[in-house]
């Protein structure tokens, strides 16, 4: 499976969305941290794609999987804004395990 790319993507986007939260609701430091984690997770998803698909197919595969995880994040966020980013840590853990399978 190559699900780890999508899982990292979801976790990354969920953090980036948290990093864009309204100032009144989220502290600035927390938003900055979420943004950094978000970008790092997107980088991890690219590395996972590189590992799984090889250098030749990694970019299209990464972009495709990332787009779908982005759509899922937005759909969940629009319905359950508070809960959308909650599973990012378990998702990252599962993705890490999948990377080594």
């Amino acid at each position, binding site marked *: 499976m*190559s699900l780890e790319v999508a899982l990292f993507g979801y976790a990354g*986007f969920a953090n980036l969305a948290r990093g864009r939260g309204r100032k009144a609701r989220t502290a600035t430091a927390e938003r900055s941290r979420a943004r950094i984690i978000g970008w790092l997770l997107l980088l991890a998803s690219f590395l996972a794609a590189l590992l799984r698909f090889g250098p*030749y197919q990694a970019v299209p595969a990464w972009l*495709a999987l990332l*787009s779908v995880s982005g759509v899922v994040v*937005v759909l969940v966020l629009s319905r359950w804004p508070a809960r959308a980013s909650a599973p990012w840590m378990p998702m990252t853990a599962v993705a890490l395990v999948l990377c080594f399978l």
Partner: protein
Amino acid sequence: MRQSMAWIHGWLGLLAGWILFAMFVTGTASYFRPEITRWMQPEYRPRPVANAEAARTAVAWLQKNAPHDEQWTIYLPNERTLATRVFTRARPNSDPKAPRAPRRPETRLDPATGVPVEGRETRGGEFFYRFHFQLQLPHPWGRWLAGLCAMFMLGAILSGVITHKRIFADFFTLRWNKGQRSWLDAHNVSAVLALPYHAMITYTGLITLVVMYMPWPILANYAQPAAFSASLYADTASQKATGRPGQLADMGRFVEAASAEWQGARVSRIIIGNPDDASSTVTLLRSSDDRLNARSASITYAGVSGARLAASPAPGPAIETAGVMLGLHLGWFAGPLLRWVCFLLGLTGCAMVATGLVLWAVKRRKPGAKPFFGLSLVDRLNIGAIACLPAGMAAFLLANRVLPPTLAGRADLEVSVMFWTWFGLAGLSLLRPARRAWIETLALGALLFAAIPIVDLIAIGGGAFDGFFLAFDGTMALLAAMLGFAAWRLARRPADAAQPRRRARLAVPEVREVMDVA
């Protein structure tokens, strides 16, 4: 600048939108072209054989049924396409000015026995694939129209990116139940999140047929267009027959030799030129399942002696790029997960076009005012394309199970059922108020998709419990749920624009203001 781009974006999207929606929907379905064909021939469950054996049986059938044709093309089976597909081209008219004979229709053969597949006659997934770029119009008009719409789409994508100034700020914004704002959000989200896919699929779609749209560079540099492909792909289509009879060598040997030269890679296609002549050639093409470049390497052998004549030259950067673009568009390189991802992105593209079309109408609808002619026309065309086409596609699949398997001409009948359902439903929807028409056509589409698993179970009985058929029927049930959800959401929504007279009576300033925003 942004205003001009917004104007261009709106009109390019609107004028090509209905055709683009049909192209997106059928193109998305085409990611599963072999699977759709397999589902549509449930009685056909062949025994898998080695490629060399499939090549031998196909050649034996061709030697019996089209021995004197100019060219045979054999698509060998793989794990997705279970049958061997063969096409032949008749010898040209002796008149040198006569056009090249067209390719004869496809015949599907059992790889083990080499006899035509004993299954119900159907066009299967091939129909969606062909419709996607030919639009069921005579050649070359369908391809030209598809190309024109793709050019509009590319223009709409570029102008849309320039127009959308809050592209990053609105990245995660999707607000439900806010009328026009929600449609705009949905259009932005479906467009921006999958922007790399939309740009790629549109541009590569255009490039796929670029030689047809812009033949002049080839005409300016080559006396015969065939010389162009001969020089780039080692194409032997233009090779002349000597007139002396010749017997083809064992086809299995060619397959094994080519596969060994490609370090075990699979042979996907065999093209045999002048098969009954002493100068016959056998060209084998490497499978591109494991690489982005869809234009794979080829090796040509002398058909009679088996001598290796030529191999395709190492592709230059331009040919490699063209091959990769074709590969990206077709998605053959994608394994099961990536194929599903491409399918979902295709659905996102459908959503982008559909929400854009609806947004055009919603933006121009004034609360309390009677819709002008153009708005009503767009509304009706939106219903006809967005809500009725899926119903037509479901009817196509249902017809496959409902029509008697041995009925003569049933393949064309299945296609007719799709168009009658699509256009018939669009015509009937004109008799209903627009809002009711949306709800009813979407609900009918949902019912038709929901009926597919049930009819499948009734028609093929226990065979429907096979993993493949369960997955296919499950997907149909999911599509039914999606259309049903859309119909349910519409039915739940207060009838704002659909009842302008009632709204006009509520001429309280506060209410009008709220409705303007919604």
